């Protein structure tokens, strides 16, 4: 298990980057215990990453509707696993929240990772992935409300964009 050093600077060989997202009427917002920002969690050697994220979200925020692993990258000297966690509106409470804007994706080269990836690009990728799953995966579709699925329709895939 990583240890606290240099004040608190979340570190370790594997990190989870959690985007806690909720539907505010007709648009998606980012929230979480660290504000409207990615929530970094260290992952241990034993517990499955999805189980760890689910457990910690339940403990700190409340029961999530969906825990979705979206992507990974190398950053902060670690392998960072990104998650979109969907929560109900009633769990937001006093946590900071901000609307999620749209972003260009960070695209890979044919055999190389993108040169830089911002967290806005990570969540854009995650929501596009969820949009696809909402129409393809019965579990994801069942976990999301009609309002959620309607918003995700604006995150549809653009299959030929990277080839233009």
């Amino acid at each position, binding site marked *: 298990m990583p*240890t606290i*050093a240099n004040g608190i600077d979340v570190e370790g060989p594997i990190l989870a980057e959690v985007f806690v997202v909720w539907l505010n009427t007709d648009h998606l917002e980012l929230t979480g215990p660290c504000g409207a920002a990615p929530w970094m*969690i260290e992952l241990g050697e034993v517990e499955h990453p999805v189980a760890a994220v689910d457990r910690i979200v339940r403990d*700190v925020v409340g029961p999530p509707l969906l825990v979705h692993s979206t992507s990974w990258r190398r950053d902060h000297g670690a392998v960072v696993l990104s998650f979109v966690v969907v929560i109900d509106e009633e769990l937001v409470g*006093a946590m900071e929240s901000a609307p999620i804007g749209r972003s260009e994706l960070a695209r890979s080269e044919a055999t190389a990772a993108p040169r830089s990836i911002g967290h806005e690009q990570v969540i854009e990728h995650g929501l596009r992935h969820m949009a696809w799953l909402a129409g393809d995966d019965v579990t994801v579709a069942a976990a999301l409300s009609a309002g959620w699925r309607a918003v995700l329709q604006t995150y549809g895939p653009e299959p030929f964009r990277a080839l233009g």
Partner: protein
Amino acid sequence: MTSLHEDVVTPSPDGELLRVGCVCGWEVVGSPDVVVPAVLEHGQKIHNMSGTPEQVLANAERVVVSEAGQEPTVRG
């Protein structure tokens, strides 16, 4: 639910304070009795990190309030 952006300021009798900040914006300022458990709880609960009181004390910033009402200064 836990609100993490909280500041706890409890100076010790000699005016020395410790300060520890987190990458997520959370910060605690106060005497060692306040700062150490707060940092350990924040690290474990929010970031799944473990640590020891000695590690917290070794890495905390020392802050001195020279006179009442003045801004504290960081000693590093």
